């Protein structure tokens, strides 16, 4: 297929993998326009098939009763030549456009920036500073994955602030991700002496790359198959084992026991009642497509989170998921702005929890990128939560911190009357505003992390690293003033987690305000994670 152009178009492949980060302009995978225009192509093919379906059916059944389709019309009018000419012309135009768009789509990686130039008529130029990298995502949608291509996204802060390299060869994308993370970590000075022992290792994959590119189709298929099977192509950059394993049964259970199912059941009940009450059958016809759609929803939820893995690497937490289309997201240290550990009420019997996070670089609002980047753990037990939190907050794993987390997830003032409760809780008069959850509503600060515990219907624990916090607000309305209460919120970047505390004693609110505002300044000064390897040596501490 496209193995031949790979070798031609990328002389860089013969050199060690760092060659792509030399600051020169490079081109993407030659099949890029085809893969990017995939939907367009599918639409055209679908259109053609739809127009000729009778002819196609007859091709198999052998009956010649078609008539009046476009081909007949063309044939009858004697315009065959013109039609062929037009088809040929369109094909040539498509090819030329694809070739030009591939020629003009170039990228470069220097020590400081990643830059992408693209566009045929409207040129666009995107630059991202490496010390502002919020995450590096490597996604392989199903079709490009079959062709051995992958998309590398370098997320920087802001809505839609992505620099996207789509598509690259799978192996190359892996190597480039590693190089970019190395550059971003501020490792350059430290790397120079290590270059000599590093070189044979790094050049090895590139050397394999060549034979693959020139080998027979069988080898190509084998290579594709191996890539397809392996969740992670960079075994030396990441420890092979995920710290968390989600059994498929638990995953399916967690998806089934969701609010969506409750909604479905209610809708089903309503439907049955309406049928019994004597409404005609058309209601059923109207609702049936929705039911089929919901099956699709379950299916996509499950396949998306199947094969979930989370590992610690020297360059941050790596989260991988996906069965058909895979995605692997690397979050460098200090890029997590808020963490929420929560348990919907349906999961309580099973002791399951989920973890979502806020990061500054979320590609929200774009359909091409899945918004799964905010889930750090789709479903897991208490022990899983502890492991994941250790990865997300590496300095937060002493005995006390663990007790604090457990207390925040399960505890409450009423239940742990005898045991020391580390949280500062809402007073009993908060029962007027939060009749069920007031005894769980509390906050604590430990080290440079603020914790908020709340909720009973969905038990939530929110952790905000103070070095990332953007501001703190306390407020009070008329009702809370009568009850001598206030509410508080920690401002973080946008995401699924909102760190707010709806009831808190007035004096406590003032204490919280002082603690958070001074803590934010203090932790930000002590924070060095924007180039995470510069001050600290690149230890494997995050990898356990």
């Amino acid at each position, binding site marked *: 297929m496209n193995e031949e152009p790979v070798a031609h178009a990328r002389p860089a492949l013969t050199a060690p993998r760092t060659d792509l980060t030399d600051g020169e302009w490079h081109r993407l995978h030659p099949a890029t326009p085809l893969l990017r225009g995939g939907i367009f192509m599918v639409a055209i093919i679908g259109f053609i098939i739809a127009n000729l379906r009778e002819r196609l059916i007859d091709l198999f059944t052998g009956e010649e009763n078609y008539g009046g389709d476009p081909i007949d019309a063309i044939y009858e009018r004697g315009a065959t030549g013109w039609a062929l000419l037009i088809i040929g012309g369109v094909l040539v135009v498509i090819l030329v456009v694809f070739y030009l768009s591939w020629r003009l789509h170039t990228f470069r990686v220097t020590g400081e920036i990643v830059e992408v130039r693209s566009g045929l008529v409207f040129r666009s130029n995107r630059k991202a500073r490496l*010390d*502002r990298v*919020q995450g590096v995502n490597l996604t392989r949608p199903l079709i490009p994955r079959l062709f051995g291509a992958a998309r590398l996204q370098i997320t920087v*802060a802001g809505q839609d602030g992505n620099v996207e390299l789509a598509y690259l060869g799978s192996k190359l994308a892996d190597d480039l991700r590693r190089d970019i993370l190395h550059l971003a970590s501020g490792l350059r000075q430290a790397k120079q002496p290590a270059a000599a022992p590093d070189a044979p290792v790094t050049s090895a994959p590139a050397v394999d790359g060549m034979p693959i590119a020139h080998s027979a189709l069988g080898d190509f298929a084998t290579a594709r198959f191996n890539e397809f099977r392996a969740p992670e192509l960079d075994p030396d950059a990441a420890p092979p084992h995920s710290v968390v394993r989600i059994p498929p049964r638990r995953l399916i259970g967690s998806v089934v026991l969701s609010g969506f199912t409750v909604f479905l059941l209610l809708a089903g009940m309503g439907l049955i009642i309406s049928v019994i009450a004597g409404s005609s059958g058309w209601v059923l016809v109207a609702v049936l497509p929705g039911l089929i759609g919901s099956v699709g929803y379950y299916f996509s939820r499950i396949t998306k989170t199947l094969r979930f893995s989370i590992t610690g690497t020297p360059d941050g937490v790596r989260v991988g998921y996906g069965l058909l289309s895979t995605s692997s997201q690397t979050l460098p240290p*200090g890029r997590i702005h808020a963490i929420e550990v929560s348990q919907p009420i349906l999961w309580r019997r099973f002791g399951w929890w989920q973890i979502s996070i806020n990061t*500054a670089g979320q590609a929200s609002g774009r359909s091409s990128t899945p918004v799964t980047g905010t889930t750090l753990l789709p479903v897991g037990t208490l022990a899983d939560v502890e492991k994941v939190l250790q990865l997300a907050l590496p300095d937060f794993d002493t005995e*006390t911190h663990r007790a*604090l987390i457990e207390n925040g997830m399960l505890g409450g003032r009423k239940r742990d009357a005898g045991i020391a*409760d*580390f*949280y*500062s809780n*809402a*007073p*009993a*008069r908060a029962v007027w505003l939060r009749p069920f959850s007031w005894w769980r509503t*509390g906050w*604590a*600060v*430990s*080290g440079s992390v603020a914790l908020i515990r709340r909720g009973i219907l969905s038990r939530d624990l929110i952790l905000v690293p103070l070095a*990332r916090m*953007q*501001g*703190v*607000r*306390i*407020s*009070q*309305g*008329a009702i809370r*003033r*009568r*009850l*001598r209460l*206030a509410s508080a*919120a920690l*401002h*973080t*970047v*946008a*995401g699924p987690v909102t760190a707010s505390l709806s009831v808190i*004693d*007035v*004096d*406590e*609110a*003032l*204490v919280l*305000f002082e*603690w958070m*505002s*001074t803590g*934010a*300044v203090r932790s*930000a*000064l002590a*924070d060095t*994670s*924007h180039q995470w390897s510069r001050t600290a040596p690149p230890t494997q501490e995050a990898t356990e």
Partner: protein
Amino acid sequence: MPDYEPNPSAGQQAEPAPESSNRLELVETGEWKRVSPKYVVVEIVGTIVNAVVVCGGATLLWLLLDQTWALWVGIVVLAVSIINLVFEPRRVRAIGYLLRADDLLFRRGILFQRFVAVPYGRMQLIDITRGPIARWLGLADLKFVTAAASAGVSIPGLAEADAESLRDRLVELAESRRAGL
């Protein structure tokens, strides 16, 4: 141990203290800087314009389409607007800001009180905007934008010169305390 030790008696006081101390009030802060008193005019004009538009619409609905509910909506909006107008000067007086060593404090509201603290280092940009009436009065609004979803701090009704010097001061402070995102 968490750094912050909860005071066990803090939440347990059964007797609410007298009304006066129920309010949120930061202690040991410095002198709050207030916004220009002229800002009242901007707020009053805004409220009146709002009331006129809504009440006018409601009246039209009532008279032309004979919708009785529109009349009631109009009356309610009018009443709320009048109450707002009465309290407007006090509300404007309640807006204040304070530059502390490392962060910017902001407060507003009487009935619904709000205090916000934003560290200077979190500044992404500062916006100065002027509405038509504010420009006529020589006022400007200053917005301190952070990376957070909820807009950081927005200080309305500063004298134009004040807004610009405050902007320069804030940029300078942020520059010396720059933190990554």
